[in-house]
């Protein structure tokens, strides 16, 4: 795999912005924004950043990752997950959805040295 021949980096050292926030009352959306084009491209093609891997990380069914897109105008990867209950319901954590992103920091992305 790429990781054996190239270098890997942690997402927190590649992206300039990693954030989460409610998108409507039923979802939390995550934005990972890159300044370096080569880091953005590496993240886009990475197998460590896919709906399946996000579902595993957050321990939710993959169907609850309702959207996963690359947004070129902002050099960003954006995905959205469905909450178990609407935001702000009794028992539901993090009303604004604004502290759901830290688990993304440690994701290892293969970065091709030749880039």
């Amino acid at each position, binding site marked *: 795999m790429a990781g054996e021949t190239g270098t890997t980096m942690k997402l927190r050292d590649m992206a300039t*912005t990693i954030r989460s*926030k*409610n*998108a*409507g*009352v*039923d*979802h939390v*959306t995550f*934005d990972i*924004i890159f*300044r370096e084009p080569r880091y953005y491209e590496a993240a886009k093609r990475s197998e460590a950043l896919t709906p399946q891997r996000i579902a595993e*990380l*957050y*321990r*939710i069914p993959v169907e609850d990752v*309702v*959207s996963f*897109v690359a*947004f070129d*105008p*902002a*050099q*960003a990867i*954006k995905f*959205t*997950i*469905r909450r*178990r*209950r*609407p*935001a*702000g*319901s*009794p*028992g*539901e*954590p*993090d*009303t*604004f959805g604004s*502290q*759901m992103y830290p*688990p993304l920091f440690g994701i290892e992305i293969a970065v091709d040295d030749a880039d």
Partner: protein
Amino acid sequence: MSTQRQMRLMSPTGHLGFTPIERGSFEIGLRHEPDAIVADSGSCDIGPYPLGSDQPHSPREWQMHDIELIVRGARELGIPAIIGSASDTGTDRGVDDYVAMVREVVERERLGPVRVAAIYSEIDRELLRGLIRDGVEIAGLNGRPPLDEATLDRTDRIVGVMGAEPIIDALDAGAEIIITGRASDSAIFAAPALRAGYPKALAYCLGKLLECASFCAEPYMGKETVIGTITDEELILEPMHPGQRCTPASVAGHAMYERIDPFTETVSAGSLDLRGIRYEAIDERRTRVTGPRFIDAPRPTIKLEGAGKVGERALAIMGIRDPITLSYLDEVIAFARRKVEERFGPPGQPGGYELFYHVFGRNGVMGYLEPTPEVVGHEVGVVVEAVAPTRVMADEIAALGSRNMFYARLPVVKGTAGGASFFSDEVLAARPGYQWTVAHVLPVDDPRELFRTRLLTVGG
């Protein structure tokens, strides 16, 4: 270029009243000759309680602070001011509160007479019930099923989200200050531009980019003023805070904020398509935006937001320091839950109670989404949350659910005088629990349907 017509909209805050507008960049903005001041005051982020219970989420003093700045600024320059989603939720009470504040400022500072429009957007539950019985399908958003009568029964208050149309009508009627009920953020900005005949795509796109004021600029700052300029071909974004810049990256980054789909923004009249959008730096502080498209809906829609009460709510706060107790934390919680069940039966029954343990220091922030729900520190804080049909019952469940952590019976106990520490041995009365019950879309013949406008003159 210099002969090309343009309109300049000033956006001083992303949520009027949430925290006060910063005066410095607001004053600079006024000196940049804006054609209107536009501010959104609403958000669903604050949870379902303010809508369901019809309470403001922000202190009245801060709402007044922001309204005073905007009304005074708009009157000095002789330009219209539009404030959307009054008092966080856009209920009729919120619109009336804001109109009263406008009146207070205008009368106190002798800024009148001023023509004010109040546009109401609360929707009667029974009207929707009638539509459902007539066979109208009110489709659910986010995978929710269509709206049914049982859901309406669980709902205390509903608002419809207006597009630009009722606001354009109010401007046509000569309104100088417009206070709206719940409105699409982008529509309150689009309204004056659409009325002046600017292209729909650019008008709504300008609203989308300006709705959170300085969030479209960098570095990150809240409550600072930004001015957006629309022409027949392009948009130009410029921050008023001297330390901020609107860069292609900051503007593009904001375009996808708080949305599932970064390419589409849906409003009453149709949807904005951002696939072909281009962001270019004009200089270090200004960014030009071109290329959005607008697709008219075959039939207009009105998004509905509704919230209903789940029950009375009580909290207890405690901490655990004993490493032995911490290693048995799940058993401790299970013991306390059993003691509650012995008295009240299992949770989650119709008309019954619910009991939640938020364990900070393990997964209190992310709950069931926490990838590593383990205790790694030397202590945890536990918030016990009880929801029940009556306050007495909620209080009792919170007390039982917390005190029995103190009395938890474990295989190994060294501290036999209490297995938990109370921050204060009391049950705290919390606001009642509410839930977002309605997130649906109603098809309509005319986007003005269901909204009611009242025109009045204040300070005459």
